[in-house]
């Protein structure tokens, strides 16, 4: 039987924080989308009502959970932080949604017509990577947002500079991941022959991502390395299981078709979720 020595509230599991973050991004995107429609003077349809209701429900749920979780001592500070994050999220959501529709509206329609669902999923995941990168870059501009402050301990200028640099390289790395997915999804849908431009762009994005990871590995201390090691190990095991299951199914005559785009999307999703979860579990946020 379990006993509790201390009445203090146990920390929330990392997966719960991750779910909150993704829900916040989703709801902010919904709000941004509606603001974008209002600004463009477009008519609202039934589906848009659903988006508004869903966003409102998510915000209410998150606000309730956050208010319950905030310690009484610095509740005001935490509420301000949450409100600023939500506002920034809504602005980025609006800009991101508008940019995606403006740039890729026709591509989306073509992909939906040709049933290239993995390509669509890749573009959405790429957009998520790029949004997270932009959020990181924007948040790093605010001293209060860049690090977990214990109590009222002020953030020194050196530490602020160091954390901003960490955010910058992490954001660039995520941007490169977004480009890798986006380029593959957009140029890979109708490859009639070798596309050297797409290949060169993809290779540049991969090289950029590796460079960012290398710089982060060299520049930061053992906590960052531990997070990277654990995330890589967990991701590897999950991808290994996926490949073993696929190989087994194919060899035993179930003929499972595995699209290269599906491989990329699944691997990148595993990598994103694992990295965020491991980071949160180690108190890096």
């Amino acid at each position, binding site marked *: *039987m*379990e*006993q*509790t*020595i*201390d009445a*203090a509230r*146990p*920390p929330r599991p990392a997966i719960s924080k991750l779910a909150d973050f993704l829900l916040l991004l989703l709801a902010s995107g919904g709000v941004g989308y509606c603001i974008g429609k209002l600004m463009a003077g477009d008519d609202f349809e039934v589906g848009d009502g659903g988006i508004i209701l869903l966003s409102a429900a998510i915000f209410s749920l998150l606000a309730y959970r956050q208010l319950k979780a905030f310690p009484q001592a610095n509740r005001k500070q935490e509420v301000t932080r949450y409100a600023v994050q939500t506002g920034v999220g809504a602005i980025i959501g609006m800009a991101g949604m508008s940019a995606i529709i403006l740039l890729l509206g026709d591509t989306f329609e073509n992909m939906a017509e040709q049933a290239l669902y993995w390509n669509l999923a890749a573009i959405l995941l790429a957009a998520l990577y790029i949004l997270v990168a932009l959020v990181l870059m924007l948040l790093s501009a605010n001293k209060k947002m860049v*690090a*977990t402050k*214990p109590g009222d*301990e002020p*953030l*020194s200028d050196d*530490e602020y500079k*160091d954390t901003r640099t960490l955010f910058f390289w992490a954001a660039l790395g995520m941007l490169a991941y977004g480009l890798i997915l986006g380029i593959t999804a957009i140029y890979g849908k109708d490859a009639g022959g070798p596309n050297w431009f797409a290949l060169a762009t993809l290779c540049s994005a991969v090289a950029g991502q590796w460079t960012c990871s290398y710089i982060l590995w060299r520049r*930061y*201390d*053992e*906590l*960052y390395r*531990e997070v990277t090691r654990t995330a890589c190990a967990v991701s590897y095991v999950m991808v290994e299981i996926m490949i073993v299951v696929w190989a087994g199914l194919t060899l035993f005559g179930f003929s499972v078709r595995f699209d290269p785009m599906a491989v990329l999307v699944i691997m990148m999703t595993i990598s994103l979720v694992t990295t965020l979860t491991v980071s949160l*579990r*180690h*108190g*890096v946020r």
Partner: protein
Amino acid sequence: MIRNASGSAQGSGKLENRLKELRMAAAWSQGELALRLGVSRQTINAVETDKYDPSLPLALRMSKLFGVPVDQIFIDHWAPKS
């Protein structure tokens, strides 16, 4: 099974530590301690909140800095079965 305030189970391999207590006694902020140990403040924060067990070299550096043996900074509840 008995759990401590951070929810970690005693005897499950997770260490408890007195880092915060020692740091407070020395009147250092997390930032100052991080600077002295050559790591980031997030690392100090993660160790103090039981989210990360430091490497052996870092634990030894902590021991030298505070002048306290490692096993008095990090407390392991494991005991060999008799």
